[in-house]
């Protein structure tokens, strides 16, 4: 049986027909063709699939599309400004060499934004701890941690 689902994705109303078992990440990648959100594991460990649901970070591999019905979703594709200017977190990843192969990066960036919002001015140890659910195999996390701290400071300053 198929179910109707509708939500806002990156500011646009979308809808579709899904099976009950369709994961949110499948809906995003395969129905909406937004392939920036990745899947790196089957056990909710790696965080490559992190997106924002109603403004907070969640793992889209461990949500049904139907659980997102009526919600507002932000994926990596919706993070930059409409004119293409990178979000401060994206810019910081670029500035600090926070990515290599790029596979974990969308999840890392989305988690980074979430960390920066919840814990402005977080120190290195806190940021490392907050990345518990995001695995990177390339960078040794150094550039990622630096990027999140830098962007967090900038996002906070911009708000103040």
């Amino acid at each position, binding site marked *: 049986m198929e179910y109707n689902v509708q939500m806002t994705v990156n500011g646009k109303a979308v809808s579709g027909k899904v*099976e*009950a078992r369709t994961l949110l990440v499948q809906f995003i990648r395969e129905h909406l063709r937004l392939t920036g959100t990745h899947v790196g594991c089957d056990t909710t460990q790696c965080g490559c699939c992190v997106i924002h649901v109603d403004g907070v*970070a969640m793992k889209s591999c461990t949500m049904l599309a139907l659980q997102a019905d009526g919600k507002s979703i932000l994926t990596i594709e919706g993070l930059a400004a409409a004119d293409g200017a990178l979000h401060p977190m994206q810019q910081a990843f670029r500035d600090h060499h926070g990515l290599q192969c790029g596979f974990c990066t969308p999840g890392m960036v989305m988690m980074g934004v*979430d960390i920066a919002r919840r814990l402005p001015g977080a120190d290195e140890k806190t940021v490392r701890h907050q990345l*518990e659910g995001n695995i990177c195999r390339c960078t040794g996390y150094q550039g990622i941690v630096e990027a999140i701290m830098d962007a967090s400071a900038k996002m906070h300053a911009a708000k103040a």
Partner: protein
Amino acid sequence: MHNFNYHHAADIADAALKLKVTVEPKLLAGGMTLLPTLKNRLAQPSDLIDLAKIDGLKGISVEGKEVVVKAMTTHAVVAASTDVRKAIPALADLADGIGDPAVRHRGTIGGSVANSDPAADYPAGVLGLDAVVETNERKINADDFFTGLFETALKPGEIITAVRFKIPDRAHYMKFRHPASGYAVVGVMVAQYGAKVRVAVTGAGPNAFRVRAMEDALEKSFAPASVANIKIPAGDLLGDIHCSAEYRAHLVNVYARRCVEALVK
């Protein structure tokens, strides 16, 4: 993942009805355990009944000497609650250490408790803070609730609505994270209520359990030395490629003592 039918429950009565009329239903709370289980095809329910739209199942209140956390309240909400932080900081700390931030944004107390996952944190909180698990049918004391590996006293059709924690004089929770998964290998909650002390352990055994010998010793003298030499038999504990039963037994002792140290400091 096998397919299933999906339903939203409008309210608790609706959820209870749907549990009755479907073949092999499962309640869906945050899904942080259920969905990985389904993805790995370790379960095949016919129907999922999503509780997310029942507003009455969300929220935190302090009622007299109790903190009441409704079943669909997420870990992140508990962790960030100033009421919880003020009344039972150990409970806020526990919630703040579950999984990772993304998991805390979805996972719920009801889902965690109902599942009796041996590596979950909340069972130590429920048992250590002498909680009462409220369902649509009755109230279950924590001591009667966790009955085995992924097994609880819940009957088919029963739905957790809230967990009612007794506010302790003081309490502390610590856990040893699994080297791979980050889940609790051993999590210990030590709580003091007047002359009474509760020591509850999650992670180590098939389900959360209390360590009466430690409680007795701490009731006589609330000091780290009281528990330092109380060994836990490894025979009933879990073991895996990272942490054997013997090691877990040892960690229970270390973490119980460290909780007491933190409390008397």
